[in-house]
């Protein structure tokens, strides 16, 4: 009797609801932020930003599921586009840093620091 089984409160974690996905998204976002703030390599920082983008995408899709419309999916489409543009320019800047300053350490790039 699956309905009896799932109606008991101890087994709530077996019923996957959009809330589960949102919680997972929060965890992934925090992991991305931790990487972003601890790593000093420019490439690593870009990779951690990608993790955070994806966590946000998961939250958008989960809420689209919860509310029964598709606007969240469209927003994810735009986020993916913006992320692609961001990565393109960011990697070009990383190449430029490696070529001109001979470093990828974000702490050593202080051309604008006075």
């Amino acid at each position, binding site marked *: 009797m699956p309905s009896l089984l799932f109606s008991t409160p101890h087994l709530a974690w077996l019923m996957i609801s959009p809330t589960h996905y949102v919680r997972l998204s929060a965890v992934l976002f925090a992991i991305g932020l931790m990487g972003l703030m*601890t790593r000093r390599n420019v490439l690593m920082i870009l990779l951690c930003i990608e993790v955070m983008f994806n966590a946000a995408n998961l939250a958008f*899709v989960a809420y689209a599921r919860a509310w029964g419309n598709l606007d969240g999916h469209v927003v994810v489409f735009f986020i993916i586009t913006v992320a692609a543009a961001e990565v393109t320019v960011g990697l070009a800047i990383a190449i430029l840093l490696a070529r001109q300053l001979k470093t990828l350490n974000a702490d050593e790039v202080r051309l604008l620091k006075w």
Partner: protein
Amino acid sequence: MTEAVFFYTFSGLAILAALSVAWNRRPIYSVLSLLVFMFCLAALFIMLGAYFVAALQVLLYAGAVLVLFLFVIMLLNLEPEALARMRLFTLRGVGTAAASLLLAALVAILRRPGPAPITPATTIGSVESIGQLLFTTYLIPFELTSFLILAAIIGAVTLARQKSHD
């Protein structure tokens, strides 16, 4: 039941891959962990009924963005000296503390039960339905993304071009 099994499998794998992205010392391993992460997220998107988004995830992220990352990392050919310098992690405690603070805030927010969704509808994000929405309601933003991509292409080419005077 099967949904729970798949959810916990893919979410556990995604968390492990994300931790590996954040903590791995070699950039190439981080990029490959990110690939695993992207595929786990694509699986979760499929479980949520977002088929079009899952396809975009695999095609654009795993297919284009990560290949770009791999190209750049192999192109830069990081010297051992640069790798050694990467191991100098400053602000590690502060960063971890900030991330755990954010996680605690998010958990506190998510523990409060919000209003239940009115329609537990099964929305399927197929190409047709997303495309219909994209070309009617979101037509102007959709057209503007082409300008964004164009600006990104021009910016990347301008930045990364070898200048002749130096």
